[in-house]
């Protein structure tokens, strides 16, 4: 029994954190927003990507962390990737790290036997050459048909009932929609009738099983990012509450402020172990893995909502302005809390398992 990251995992995580602090600060984040004014400054014209951070991660091998060695990857597990996604959340990196390194690799790895393309695509990921998006359009999982930065991606995986397709974005009917989080340059994909056999990657039971695993990873990836986002918001808020004075004292000395932040922090501290445990369960193929993922996503989503609410309330008016950085993280947390199943969806998966009603 040892419920802790290994020294190597901790070190990898620290390196990624440093790298993201350098390449994906608030300035780079604002530059990913298409609309400079909504971002609260910056150049505008972004496409939901932070190229410097993406290529640095690619170079480090993060994208191929779960790709088999045979395809040029590190052949590590969800347990290794998830802590890095917490860091991606901390930086609010909008790029498709979870979708590429986690969801796509999960799907492709189950297709290598039947589809030669799958191995090539995995190799492309490991080489840092391919970025992926993923949409769940119909089936037993929560519908998720928004794909961030879709036009910038190389391939999009579509899970539709008992089929998994892989399609280039140019071949898809993409409708651009406006997310509250502008760094998620969002596109909606509606159920695509015109999909033909040429893009099929998996069908039948293999597709259904792969879809379930892929959805589980997608939800867990979002949960991990929400943990990182929550920590970032609380860090910013503690700093602000320590600097800002009202009534002649630091506002962080007020008990109401202390308790707001402690409550949010409690939610985060007790959600994170659920996230790490779910990563372990996915890595080991634990039969309870889906339930463990749902526990992680339900509690991480709730924790992020609590952290966002406490952070805004403690900041007061300055947190309400787009020129201040808080909104960059808060809006992402609002978006991810609902993505790949919200609190209600995942809590229901748990109660169905416990009570089978």
């Amino acid at each position, binding site marked *: 029994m040892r419920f802790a990251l290994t020294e190597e995992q901790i070190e990898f995580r620290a390196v990624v954190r440093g790298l993201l602090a350098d390449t994906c600060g608030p300035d780079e984040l604002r530059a990913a927003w298409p609309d400079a004014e909504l971002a609260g400054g910056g150049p505008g014209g972004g496409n939901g990507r932070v190229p410097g951070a993406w290529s640095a991660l690619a170079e480090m091998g993060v994208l191929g962390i779960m790709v088999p060695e045979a395809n040029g990857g590190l052949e590590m597990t969800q347990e290794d990737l998830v802590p890095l996604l917490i860091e991606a959340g901390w930086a609010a990196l909008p790029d498709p790290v979870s979708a590429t390194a986690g969801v796509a690799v999960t799907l492709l790895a189950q297709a290598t036997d039947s589809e030669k393309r799958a191995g090539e695509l995995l190799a492309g990921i490991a080489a840092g050459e391919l970025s992926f998006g993923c949409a769940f359009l119909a089936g037993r999982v929560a519908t998720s048909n928004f794909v961030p930065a879709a036009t910038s991606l190389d391939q999009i995986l579509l899970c539709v009932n008992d089929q998994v397709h892989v399609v280039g974005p140019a071949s898809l009917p993409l409708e651009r929609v406006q997310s509250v989080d502008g760094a998620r340059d969002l596109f909606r994909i509606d159920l695509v009738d015109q999909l033909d056999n040429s893009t099929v990657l998996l069908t039948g039971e293999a597709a259904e099983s792969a879809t379930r695993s892929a959805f589980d990873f997608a939800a867990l990836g979002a949960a991990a990012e929400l943990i990182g986002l929550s920590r970032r918001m609380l860090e910013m808020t503690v700093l602000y509450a320590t600097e800002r004075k009202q009534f002649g004292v630091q506002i962080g000395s007020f008990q109401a402020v202390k308790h707001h932040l402690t409550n949010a922090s409690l939610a985060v501290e007790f959600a994170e172990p659920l996230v790490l445990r779910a990563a372990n369960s996915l890595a080991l193929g634990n039969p309870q893995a889906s339930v463990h993922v749902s526990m992680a996503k339900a509690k991480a989503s709730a924790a992020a909502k609590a952290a966002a609410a406490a952070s805004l*309330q403690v900041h007061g008016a300055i947190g309400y302005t787009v020129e201040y950085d808080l909104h960059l993280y808060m809006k992402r947390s609002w978006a991810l809390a609902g993505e790949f199943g919200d609190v209600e969806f995942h809590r229901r998966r748990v109660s169905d398992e416990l009570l089978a009603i």
Partner: protein
Amino acid sequence: MDLTWSESEEAFRTEARSWLESNVPTPALPSGDTKEGFALHLDWEHRLAADNWSVVSWPKAFGGRDASLWEWLIFEEEYYRVGGPQRVTQNGIFLLAPTIFEFGTPAQQEYYLPRMSSAVDLWCQGWSEPNAGSDLAAVRSKATRDDAAGGWRLSGQKTWTTRGAFCNYLFGLFRTDPESERHKGMTYFMVPLEGDGVTVRGFGRLDGDEGFAEVFFDDLFIPDDDGTAATMARGGILGEVNQGWGVAMATTSSERGLTLRSPGRFQATATRLVELAREQVGNGLSEQMADAVADAWMDAEAYSLFTLSDVSGVVEGKAMGARSSYNKIFWSELDVRLHEVALDLLGPSAELDGPWMKGYQFALSGPIYAGTNEIQRNIVAERVLGLPRK
């Protein structure tokens, strides 16, 4: 207890509803907190004023209808029921006007109030400063006496001024006694935002609108009141010099109180929430979400009844006092809750920049502005429950 409306009140409702239904712009106006939206809202305010619907409870002489508080509640109900636009004049009408009614000279009332009700003058509030947010007594902006010129010279900075970039007047506190500290030695000024000595810089709000402004004063001259319109147009003082704190408190208490957030607005939101849920009946609406909707809707009803109870007291001459802080805490958190439930109903679409997400972001400002809810909770605890101040 009589929970019915009188015939004349029903007639007032019918008249208001009929006018509003014919006049409220459709489709809904864009946000009034952007430059373009503000101009459209101004047109709307002028139309309201032209038919005397902008300030129904004011005296006719100042543009109102001498309506009772009950009629005012009815008007608000109807206004929000038909989806009437956000009132971009509200800071003047609801926050400054009560102070002018209480502290203004007859000349000031005659000059400022009709121009306010007809949306000729547009007022923003200048309470907050970079180091004086919740702590209003920490104001540093100052007004220096210039006896030679016969007036005051203002300098300093105000911030978080809602719609400041679109208004032509600001009201707020300035320190007139340089030796004073905290609550003492401040004066309540009305200040023009055009001309030399003023710089206004708009900046972006959470919801993407540029509805905030910073206002910088650099030796802005406000002449002493000589009772002429020309002078009053250049600003003035409400109440006595160095007595601004007391004057301002009268305003902030009206801000928290009855008139800023009539129940009609939240009932309208609750009704839209119920409609949103009804669309999902038979199509995935869970018992849990249905109950969450019912719970929020009940709170909107409770807020309405609480207000009816307060108005019943006020019309019989009872003071609301610190009970108005209950009101502020409740409506602001109710507004957040109503929007949260709606976003939960929307599921993954909640993140889209639609009306509920917009409304949510707007609602989030409620527990912060007009005295944070933490401060309101202190007020309730100390002044209503009687706990020690420490």
